[in-house]
């Protein structure tokens, strides 16, 4: 085993790793995270956003270590939580979360039936992480099979007391505590700041005799929690769902889809058609952002659909948003169809709509600038949600709970004076269309969007009424 190490980090200062942890960081599988940017192409909006999964994972590890101390976990539980934090992002493919969409589309589910059972089946990228933990020889050697099984359980559904899971996945998990601070720092925005020390000081574990030990915050920590929830809200609005970020994410996924379906690029298929075989993961861990861009932006693929999109991303010649509207503002007949339009099961329907919208754009004498014979391949429809700030404090397990001495706990929403007074502006779902159009200034953009609004609304209404 190596000697303990200390790593200097711009967010948390010194991060201390034990010999075992340093050895895990030194593995090829872990080092690969240096090549996967945390926020994919967000650097096209915020040039500083070039940080990678590598430093984020070290940050999550560090915050988890702090929480282990706060909650006074046993040595065994502490090791489990810290190692889980170190390994939680290993399954990320090129461009982080963007790869997840492609994996969902191209996974061979007929071969995965046993692993996708139940009401809430695992996501494909979670299966990839499981495979990595089960098969990576270096991790097996360093950590041992038994501990890796516990880590896999903790990351996927929970292991031991619920509070252990809360550290690695939950409304206040170490992942969020790191990425909010780190992403805001690298993007150069000032929204993600919150008082980490105060938050930790006021976190506590409450024993629930049925469900075990649960994480809560004391009423003195409510203001730090308000900051945390607001940070999440602002970063989501300003960075994670920024218009250009949504466009670039969609361009990456479309480049993969076209590369596999139209261009028949075998390398891409091998990268995203997950079938549970050991060969898949062996290949998967050899890829990062740079190899993706070099391989599929290579001039030998000139003329291919995938190549055009990758080149556009490389040179920031992005698709433009030509239409956007709240779902609630669209014709009733099409709302639910549009809300689910990006699901893999809606692919045929989505393609039909994109072809129809391409026709109405061209009928409006708007030029679609692409070398492809079929420009509809670069017309992308998207639907997405913008969560209301009040809802930001909730997660899948329910609202955040605040402990008030010996009284029954209350919800954060009720305890926070600030959040109680927020207006009830609801969560919004939006629908947008991106296309390869050109304009030179905001006035031209507004004119173009105005010109296309009615024709696109008409196409959406027809789409809603048709089957």
């Amino acid at each position: 085993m190596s000697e303990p190490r200390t790593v200097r980090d711009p967010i948390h200062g010194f991060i201390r790793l034990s010999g075992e942890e340093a050895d895990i960081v030194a593995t090829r599988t872990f080092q690969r995270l240096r090549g996967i940017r945390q926020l994919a192409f967000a650097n096209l909006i915020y040039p500083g956003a070039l940080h990678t999964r590598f430093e984020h994972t070290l940050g999550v590890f560090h915050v988890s270590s702090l929480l282990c101390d706060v909650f006074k976990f046993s040595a065994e539980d502490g090791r489990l939580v810290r190692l889980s934090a170190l390994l939680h992002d290993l399954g990320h493919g090129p461009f982080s979360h963007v790869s997840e969409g492609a994996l969902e589309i191209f996974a061979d589910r007929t071969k995965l039936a046993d692993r996708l059972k139940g009401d809430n089946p695992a996501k494909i990228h979670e299966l990839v992480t499981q495979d990595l933990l089960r098969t990576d020889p270096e991790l097996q050697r360093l950590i041992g099979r038994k501990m890796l099984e516990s880590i896999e359980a903790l990351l996927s559904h929970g292991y031991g007391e619920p509070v252990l899971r809360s550290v690695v996945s939950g409304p206040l998990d170490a992942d969020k505590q790191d990425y909010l601070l780190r992403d805001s720092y690298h993007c150069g925005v000032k929204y993600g700041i919150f008082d980490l020390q105060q938050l930790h000081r006021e976190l506590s574990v409450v024993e629930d005799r049925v469900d075990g030990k649960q994480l809560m915050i004391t009423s003195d920590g409510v203001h730090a929690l308000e900051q945390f929830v607001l940070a999440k809200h602002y970063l989501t609005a300003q960075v994670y769902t920024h218009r250009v970020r949504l466009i670039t994410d969609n361009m990456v996924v479309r480049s993969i889809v076209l590369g596999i379906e139209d261009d028949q690029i075998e390398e891409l298929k091998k990268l995203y058609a997950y079938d549970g075989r050991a060969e898949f993961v062996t290949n998967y861990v050899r890829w990062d952002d740079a190899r993706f861009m070099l391989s599929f932006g290579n001039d030998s693929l000139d003329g291919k659909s995938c190549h055009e999109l990758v080149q556009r991303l490389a040179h920031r010649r992005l698709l433009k948003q030509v239409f956007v509207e709240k779902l609630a503002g669209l014709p009733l007949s099409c709302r639910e169809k549009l809300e689910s339009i990006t699901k893999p099961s809606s692919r045929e329907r989505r393609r039909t709509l994109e072809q129809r919208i391409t026709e109405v754009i061209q009928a409006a004498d708007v030029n679609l600038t692409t070398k492809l014979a079929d420009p509809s391949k670069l017309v992308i429809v998207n639907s997405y949600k913008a969560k209301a700030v009040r809802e930001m404090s909730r997660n899948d397990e329910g609202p955040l709970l605040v402990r008030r001495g010996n009284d029954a706990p209350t919800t954060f929403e009720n305890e926070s004076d600030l959040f109680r007074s927020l207006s009830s502006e609801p969560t919004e779902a939006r629908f947008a269309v991106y296309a390869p159009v050109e304009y030179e200034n905001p006035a031209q953009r507004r004119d173009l969007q105005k010109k296309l609004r009615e024709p696109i609304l008409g196409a959406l209404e027809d789409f809603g009424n048709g089957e």
Partner: protein
Amino acid sequence: MVNDYSIRDFVLLGYKAFGGSIRGKTMLQKRIYFLSVMLDANLGYGAHYYGPYSSAVAAANLDLKSLGYLDESASGWGVDHRGFEIARYDYSLTGDGIATAEFKAEKHAGLWKKVQNAAAVIQQAGDLSYMELSIAAKAYFALTRLKGKATLDEISGLMPQFGWSVDKDELEKASAFLERAALVTQQ
């Protein structure tokens, strides 16, 4: 998906069956909880400090809002332990929501009939406040953990294990409601 319908459709039909509006998130959660019990539908309810709670139902409610099927209004209501006002969020179907609920009722005619009947039973069993309904939901949830057969004392004894505190009078009232709704029988 629950069978051939989504949880969102279930909640939408719940609104329709309860007259198009529900006052408060707790009332929504507990009414849909009892509907799910009566229809034997798994909507993901689990124990929570404020009684049985389903994040899937909460998410479905958000979806219904974002699709423009629900109006939400916040009203000042009561005060907390420090004297601060607590907000209550009321929901009602919009015109689009009413039209869509009508469409879904036709599409899932069998489900709609069951939801309608179950909602009628719940309403006829008593016009409970959100708090009373919450206690009834807690009592029923605890009973299911006791294999469906227990005395009031046994139910009362189990309550603290969920972090719930219910006094005997409240529990008796809840029990009477559950009996009228044919969810329990006295032996």
